[in-house]
């Protein structure tokens, strides 16, 4: 029950919320992840410590866990930034609205083509149609990598770093063309390092390093390995 307390942001006074913020800022990322998973498990089991269990249970089911939302928000904010409680809840609501929005658009395409199952391609198509073009290329890279790992699930060792490096290298080959959407590597190298430090974790430092590598390669667009030619039109981020 104590582990559930940090995630009960609803109906709590601001002072306790600030304490929770301190806890989040002090905890390293892996521990936070494990705690989040445990918290989610507790919520899924129906253990509710709120005064209004039914409303909170239903409300929790239609929103993403707020701790996950806050962690992602903090990735991009300066270390001294604070997030008000209404901002956290607003982002939660925006995420659920976004899922419904994209799903509805993808479902319309399925119905027009007389299909019953929404696929990843339908989701990507919906995002490009709804104005989120700059999400499509990174998501294409991500889902291709996900499929590669799923395909090699039986043979490859998932936790082994060399396989991850090979995977990343493979995707790196796909990057080519001028990088209009990316900043020049020289002055941003220092900036990206600071960004990694500000985001507060060695995990994101690797992302920063990866960014530098990409800048040196000059990659600005990605080609689909598994062949989705319909999405090549959004190679540029602008």
């Amino acid at each position, binding site marked *: 029950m104590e582990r559930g307390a940090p995630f009960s942001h609803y109906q709590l006074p601001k002072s306790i919320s600030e304490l929770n913020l301190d806890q989040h800022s002090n905890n390293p990322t892996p521990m936070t992840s494990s705690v989040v998973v445990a918290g*989610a498990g507790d919520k899924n089991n129906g253990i509710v410590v709120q005064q209004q269990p039914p409303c909170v249970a239903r409300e929790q*089911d*239609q929103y*993403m*866990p707020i701790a996950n939302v806050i962690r*992602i*928000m903090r990735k*991009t*904010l300066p*270390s*001294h*930034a*604070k997030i*008000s409680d*209404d*901002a956290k809840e*607003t*982002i939660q*609501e*925006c*995420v*659920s*609205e*976004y*899922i*419904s929005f994209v*799903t*509805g658009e993808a*479902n319309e395409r399925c119905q027009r083509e007389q299909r*019953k*199952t*929404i*696929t*990843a391609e339908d*989701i990507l198509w919906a995002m490009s149609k709804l104005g*989120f073009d*700059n999400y499509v*290329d*990174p998501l*294409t*890279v*991500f*889902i291709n*990598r*996900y499929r590669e*790992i799923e395909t090699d699930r039986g043979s490859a060792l998932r936790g082994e770093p060399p396989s991850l490096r090979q*995977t990343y290298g493979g995707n790196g080959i796909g990057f080519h063309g001028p990088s209009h*959407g*990316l*900043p020049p590597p020289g*002055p*941003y190298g*220092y*900036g990206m390092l*600071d960004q990694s430090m500000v985001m507060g974790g060695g995990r994101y430092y*690797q*992302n920063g390093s990866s*960014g530098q590598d990409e800048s040196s390669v000059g990659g600005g667009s990605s080609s689909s390995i598994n062949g989705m030619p319909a999405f090549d039109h959004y190679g540029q*981020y*602008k």
Partner: protein
Amino acid sequence: MEENNGNNNHYLPQPSSSQLPPPPLYYQSMPLPSYSLPLPYSPQMRNYWIAQMGNATDVKHHAFPLTRIKKIMKSNPEVNMVTAEAPVLISKACEMLILDLTMRSWLHTVEGGRQTLKRSDTLTRSDISAATTRSFKFTFLGDVVPRDPSVVTDDPVLHPDGEVLPPGTVIGYPVFDCNGVYASPPQMQEWPAVPGDGEEAAGEIGGSSGGN
């Protein structure tokens, strides 16, 4: 409320050519946050970090529970079935959305602090409201976040995806003033006559004339 930073800030000028010179008085009167970054909330940097999320090496650890994503997807009665990959993809897309919204909202947080002549470091709902009002692609959030009447929405013709901003915005000018000056939409909305706007105008004039 702790304010223990802002004394050792360094501002790195952005290498891309800017039509406006950065206002030195602004940075003297308004200390920047405690990071030394080349304008991390510009559209280029925003797209860069969104792209970085797609390159994450950890594709097995999902940021959000897939069962809950599937439940939200199926809350639409017309949705029948979804493949196993769809919630995985949406989980990553939600990370990008949160990153996108947070960066845009923080831009308004800093701007709001500048207008009230004291640094603001708390992201609030009104900052999110201003950010979602400004970008055309967030129109679908109208039921979730109220519109900010003091912000002009990007014209979808001038800024099709809301990613290309006027140059002044990149160097930290108020978004709506800059939008009105450098890229006015065809149908200019009339500003409401509220005291807040008066204060903003006064602050802006004072800042530009160097009275501060």
